[in-house]
């Protein structure tokens, strides 16, 4: 008697499922015994099976973070802008990204001159926003979950996507904006040493159009502030080094995050004075190493600016964030820089009705 074909490890088509890696079934609520019942789970045998027909029922995209291959595809297809959001563990990178999308979604673009046009990662954005909406306001509590990048180490899912349209109606472009959402540990490893692993993880750096570097303002003002200053300055220097051959040099926006926690000690200077060290009071002493790194960067033609930001100064129900859009406005000013022709200032004659005037003008011999 022939033996039945050997069972293979299960595979799952659901991107949220980690059961095959020893984790949890994404549809556990529906199927308490997922190994036996979950239709997403495919346990193949060595005998070939007819292909499953789920493909035709699958949505065109997953809505989750994009992986490096998807990003590569997008970058080769469109002139997408890539902004690296970098900083050590717990600096508030994902909070900043969540708050940025919330501001877009709430119509609070402020100086950001683009309107929402599309997103391939709406599902991820919603998960982040829903998690943030549950935050009780306790500073010890995580506002969003710390970033992990999925089970696939070769294709980590670490990019969020927003499609933008310039708010000038005549500008017909659709701009794909990719934002990195990577663990602070990766940034730390890469800052310390660029080896095979960290270099591969951070390969996107060479393609970045702008950098948003976060430093936790409350940590800077704390007892171990020197450590945060050191980490930040080294990160700035690493970016400076890795972008030395890029022309034009991508800009760097230094975000002093969680600023609401230091606002009683430091009032941010006016926007035009933010790159002057003297404007930051007590914080300028706490950022000594970082200032030196930034001044070095400036000497190498790398533009930078500094932004105080409070992405979640209170529970979402209690009020608005402050300064969230500014670093993105600054980054996009550089990343989306293009020559603009001067508009024609042809004034229509008095009492003219616009469309009729244009028609007559065109008909003239």
């Amino acid at each position, binding site marked *: 008697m022939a033996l039945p074909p050997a069972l293979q490890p299960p595979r799952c088509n659901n991107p949220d499922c980690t059961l095959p890696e020893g984790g949890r079934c994404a549809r556990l609520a529906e199927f308490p015994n997922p190994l036996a019942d979950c239709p997403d789970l495919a346990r193949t045998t060595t005998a070939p099976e007819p292909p499953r027909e789920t493909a035709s029922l699958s949505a*065109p995209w997953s809505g989750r973070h994009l992986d490096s291959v998807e990003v590569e595809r997008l970058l080769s297809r469109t002139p997408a802008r890539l902004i690296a959001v970098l900083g050590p563990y717990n600096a508030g990178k994902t909070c900043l990204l969540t708050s940025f999308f919330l501001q877009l979604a709430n119509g609070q673009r402020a100086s950001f001159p683009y309107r929402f046009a599309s997103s391939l990662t709406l*599902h991820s954005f919603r998960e982040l926003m829903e998690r943030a*909406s549950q935050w009780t306001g306790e500073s010890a509590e995580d506002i969003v979950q710390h970033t992990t990048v999925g089970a696939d180490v070769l294709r980590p899912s670490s990019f969020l996507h927003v499609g933008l349209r310039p708010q000038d109606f005549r500008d017909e472009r659709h701009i794909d904006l990719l934002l990195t959402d990577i663990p602070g540990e990766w940034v730390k490893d890469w800052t310390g040493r660029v080896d095979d692993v960290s270099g591969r993880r951070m390969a996107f750096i060479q393609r970045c159009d702008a950098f948003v570097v976060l430093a936790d303002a409350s940590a800077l003002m704390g007892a171990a502030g020197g450590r945060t200053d050191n980490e930040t300055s080294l990160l700035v220097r690493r970016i400076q080094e890795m972008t030395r051959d890029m022309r034009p040099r991508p800009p760097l926006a230094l975000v002093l995050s969680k600023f609401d926690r230091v606002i009683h000690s430091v*009032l941010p200077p006016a926007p035009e004075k933010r790159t002057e060290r003297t404007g930051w009071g007590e914080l300028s002493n706490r950022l000594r190493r970082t200032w030196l790194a930034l001044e070095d960067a400036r000497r190498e033609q790398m533009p930078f600016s500094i932004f105080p930001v409070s992405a979640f100064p209170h529970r*979402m129900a209690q009020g608005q964030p402050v300064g969230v859009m500014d670093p993105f406005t600054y980054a996009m000013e550089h990343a989306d820089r293009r020559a603009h022709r001067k508009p024609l200032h042809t004034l229509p004659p008095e009492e003219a009705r616009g469309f009729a005037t244009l028609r007559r003008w065109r008909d003239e011999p």
Partner: protein
Amino acid sequence: MSDQHRIALLGGPSTGKSTYLGALVDALQMEKLQHLRLAGLGDDAVGLQRLADPLLGGHYPQRTKVTERLSLDAPLHTAGTYFDPLSFTLRAGDYAGEEVERLFRDRIHGWSEEWKARAFSSGFLLLVRPDTLTRLPRPQPTSEQDERERWRLLRHEPVAEPSSVRSGPAPVAPTNAAAYFGPLPVEEVPPTPRAAPSDPVSVPTALSLIELLQFIRHVRGLAPGERPRAAQERFRIALVLTAWDTVDSSWRQAGPAAYLAHHLPLLEDYLWSNFLQEDVFRFGLSATGGDLNDASYSQRYLEDPSGFVEWWEAAHGPHRSADIGMPLYWLLFGDRALGAP
């Protein structure tokens, strides 16, 4: 124009899809639609038979279950002289609103052949129910405080009284375009005002609808951000705010466009970015004219079933019609429908 018009109703749970279809069916049978008439029963008259049933009993339809979905499949012709003579079959399917949400969460099984076929509809009625939106109405001009003042507020320092504290009417749609160009049927959507520091930040409620529209555009071969211009690519979207009778009167005066700009800015941005202005229009609809859960109104409705539609035009200001077919006319005939008697 082709002899078949498939109109897709899009909307999440409890947005009033079945109620609107039921009221439309009843209005067709009672010849209450000014410009459309039934031209027979067609092969499948089950929708005509059953969609209006609950309303004829003076109550709202139960939420649609997956196994009980009905569709309106009605041969129609135009009535009167306002629109050119046209005979066609109107197909509009109902479905459980939870499907939209399921499609957002479950990407593996949700995108059925039925949805793909629906994506090629000739027009879309996008139903949104105001009382399901989480963002609180803010019918007053909001603050223009600069960033520095906001930081001072976080320090609990006194700052100048913002203008937002004063109450006032809901914002009105601007009329400057009409003043310059003359009457234009295209409505102007006012920008969302800047929030006051203490305004809540809300998780947007229309993400699943936006994702659905993205899928629909993808199936139709439209790139993100591409405003369809060729005749064969264009399709109309009527954004319908249902239960419009329950909306605060100041917002009703401001019009559906102003309401949506304040309450669903992400959806408004999405539509602005992806469609020509003339392919999107916004209506406030009360399919039953009042609340059927109110026994006395339910009784009145049984005696005289009626609803109304309101909209705002840049050139002519607010409009109201007792003809609940107006969103349908607009999908079928475009801006000319807005001048229909």
